[in-house]
């Protein structure tokens, strides 16, 4: 019985880990400022990209010019996020 409960708990954890989270990425100077590279946050209470920022950074002010992407497409802070989305925050790009 203990074994079964542990198995159920493990499955719940697995479900939580893979299905009820949003994956957050920070790049370049923003990664250094925030002190985070890749984090997962719970989806609960997070509707928009801005909410995701606030949850991941513990309500840190977002620097001006911060760019945002959901699943590797540029979006605005008001963009709705879904469970399993990859949300990225980064400074203006400087390639080329």
């Amino acid at each position, binding site marked *: 019985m203990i074994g079964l409960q542990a198995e159920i708990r493990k499955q719940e954890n697995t479900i939580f880990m893979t299905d009820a989270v949003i994956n957050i*990425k920070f*790049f*370049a100077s923003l990664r250094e400022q925030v002190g985070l590279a890749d984090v997962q946050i719970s989806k609960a209470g997070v509707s928009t990209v801005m909410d995701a920022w606030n949850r991941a950074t513990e309500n840190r002010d977002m620097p001006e010019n911060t760019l945002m992407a959901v699943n*590797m497409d540029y979006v605005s802070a008001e963009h709705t996020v879904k469970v399993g989305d990859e949300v990225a925050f980064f400074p203006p*790009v*400087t*390639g*080329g």
Partner: protein
Amino acid sequence: MHIEIKDKPFEPYQYLLEYQDETGFAGKYGATAVFVGSMREFNQGEDVSAMTLEHYPGMTEKYLQKISEEAATQWNILDSLIVHRVGEMLPNDPIVLVAVWSAHRAAAFDASRYLMEELKSRAPFWKKESLTDKTRWVEKNT
């Protein structure tokens, strides 16, 4: 249409020689417009001794592909190529190679410039420069 992220130094003209040999459009194109961006040893009034180029794996390729497709939609071109370095580099190292092949020159000129401008404004790459006594992120593309 080809895009490539390189984490090792590459020689753009050597790359073009080999790339063109493999394409099947010899005799079809009358124009090739090429742009090479290289690392300068001097930026914003300071000597730069090295540079690190960070990117967003996956999104970078997606945007290079997207802008290549946009160029192919807007201009009558035969092929396009984008190669971009990431990682540690030194002054004079090539950073980016863009090439466009077309029958006539206007399309090649226009499309190659479009690719560079769009790459600069949309492809997620970031440069961090090593100066004599510190490092700094390049804040804005000019």
